[in-house]
């Protein structure tokens, strides 16, 4: 409908404003998806490469992946919470606390690394369950509950760490989480597997649609998507193989993203997350247990925060009093928003955790290479976040007005 309006308007005569309006209405229709943020990443990379050619070297890009994995994992959980139209301000503190729990279990109590990691993750689950129950059952805004959590879990972190304040990690399994790289053949095989699975599942879906007599998207679009996935994954493997190889941690992050992407788009639970975020009252009337969905999402978010904290600890090979502090919280929330997940609930994708983390980490990494002061770094990241939130708010306003038209 609005496409008809759009093509009827002579956009050429309106210049930049017309183009922006046309773009805006396509943006509203969700036709552009991740394109703006991908364009943003390309622009950022081009600028930094121009300023310092070292930016686009395989070594630096591999470091970039290692840097963003922890926060990216936390962001996957944040996407879930944002889709509900809620917020979780405790993810930073939870990531630090759960990493400390893992470290204490492993180092002080001699618990095997695998069990210690699971223990840390489950601590996150328990925290999220409590916070979610509190917010959902007592109808307290999640903003406040998790703000209280932010303070409380920071205190708990100091408590768990005890007198020493820092616990160094020596365990090879924990180190391997971020220290392991796959041999180049394995990297190529992983990329091939990804492409084949993507293409096969797409073909299967097309066949099912054809059997049901439903309209199919043009074949060329499907081939284009497969080609894009193939080029991206092969290029990534090529670059990573030129340095140390595909890092295990990238596989972990992609695993979380693919898992939750499927859960959100293909299961009842995922559908209900979107429904509650879009219109909680409508969801309730449709018989959906809104409280249960909220509690489950907060539990998942804190679990993912714990996993992110464990990855960060593995990279640092230590847990200390500032684990999960500093800008972890803000970056993990800013990422998905920059990537295009709406702060108002009901709109977004798990992939924005990755694209947003790429933007933030690229800026931070690039500025480090240029030896810029952290003042500049914070200012620029803040500016990018503000721009992303503004686009989200404007898109929402356009949606509301175009919805009535």
């Amino acid at each position: 409908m609005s496409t008809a309006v759009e093509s009827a308007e002579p956009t050429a005569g309106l210049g930049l404003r017309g183009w922006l309006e046309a773009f805006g209405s396509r943006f509203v229709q969700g036709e552009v998806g991740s394109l703006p943020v991908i364009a943003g990443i390309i622009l950022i990379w081009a600028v930094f490469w121009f300023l310092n050619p070292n930016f686009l070297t395989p070594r630096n890009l591999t470091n970039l992946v290692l840097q963003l994995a922890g926060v990216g994992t936390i962001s996957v959980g944040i996407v879930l919470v944002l889709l509900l139209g809620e917020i979780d301000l405790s993810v930073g503190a939870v990531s630090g606390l759960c990493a400390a729990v893992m470290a204490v279990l492993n180092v002080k109590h001699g618990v095997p690394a695998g069990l210690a990691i699971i223990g840390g993750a489950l601590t996150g689950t328990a925290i999220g369950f409590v916070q979610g129950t509190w917010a959902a059952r007592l109808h307290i805004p999640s903003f406040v509950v998790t703000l209280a959590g932010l303070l409380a879990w920071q205190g708990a972190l100091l408590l768990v760490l005890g007198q020493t304040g820092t616990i160094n990690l020596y365990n090879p399994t924990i180190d391997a989480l971020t220290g392991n790289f796959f041999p180049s053949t394995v990297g190529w095989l992983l990329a091939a597997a990804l492409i084949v699975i993507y293409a096969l599942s797409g073909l299967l879906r097309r066949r099912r649609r054809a059997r049901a007599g439903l309209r199919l998207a043009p074949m060329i679009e499907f081939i284009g998507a497969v080609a894009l996935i193939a080029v991206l994954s092969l290029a990534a493997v090529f670059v990573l193989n030129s340095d140390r190889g595909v890092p295990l941690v990238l596989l972990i992050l992609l695993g979380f993203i693919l898992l939750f992407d499927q859960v959100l788009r293909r299961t009842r639970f995922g559908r209900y997350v979107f429904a509650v975020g879009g219109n909680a009252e409508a969801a309730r009337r449709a018989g959906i247990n809104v409280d249960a969905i909220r509690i489950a999402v907060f539990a998942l978010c804190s679990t993912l925060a714990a996993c992110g904290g464990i990855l960060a600890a593995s990279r640092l090979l230590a847990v200390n009093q500032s684990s999960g502090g500093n800008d972890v919280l803000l970056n993990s929330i800013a990422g998905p928003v920059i990537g295009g997940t709406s702060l108002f609930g009901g709109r977004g994708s798990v992939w924005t955790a990755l694209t947003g983390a790429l933007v933030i980490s690229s800026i931070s990494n690039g500025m480090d290479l240029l030896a810029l002061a952290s003042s500049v770094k914070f200012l620029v990241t803040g500016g990018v976040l503000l721009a992303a939130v503004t686009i989200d708010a404007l898109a929402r306003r356009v949606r509301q007005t175009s919805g009535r038209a």
Partner: protein
Amino acid sequence: MATNGRHPILELHGISKHFGAVQALSDVDFEVYPGEVVALVGDNGAGKSTLVKTIAGINLPDAGEMIFEGRPIAVHGPRDVTRIGIATVYQDLALCDNLDVVSNLYLGREELDEPLPALDEESMEKRSIEVLSTLSVKLPSVRSTVASLSGGQRQSTAVARSVMWDAKVVLLDEPTAALGVAQTRQVLDLIKRLRDRGLGVVVISHNLADVFEVCDRIVVLRLGRRVADFGVKDATREQVVAAITGADIGGLVPEDEMNAGATP
């Protein structure tokens, strides 16, 4: 009455409901026949919404009984009512704007691709297209989000959702409020198609033009009582307005009105 000789699909007898000191409904009878559109009209505070909420199972009446297809039914909540085939479309439509039409039609009743926990999108989309086309509801695509639909299309989607689960009675709360002329037409046509399929339709409306166009019978509530019941062919707009407002226009007020006025 236009529907003599048939049995009502839904009957309410002697329904009373009070909220604190306010008597919202007093001894109200109401009935819908299959293949009939009944308008429920009345001024603000006349008890229309209370009556509809009672039928929908949201308000539990203080007194009175509900009979569905000849059998008395016990209503303890909205689920009891929807389960037997009474669907309600509220004014706010209860659609999720961010989801597409198929997702909204199936919200809370998603089909799974057994034994996987995955949604069976193909089967849901296919049935959605079928239902929408039997109701002649035209949408840009069943995969467009509700946010991108017009008001009439949204209303039609909400109605389609209510009837797609074998509803026998549909309650529509102000279905044409806030719609433009063309969109009102779409919705009125849809209501006629529901009637043609043999459903009992109850329409709450303030718009007498719509009421006279689409309804077979007009039930008027005033101050919590049923004061009039017109066959639409035998009534004039003035009579209906008189019944709504309680104005006495020389002998035009129907007999029920006099009776109702006499009881304290």
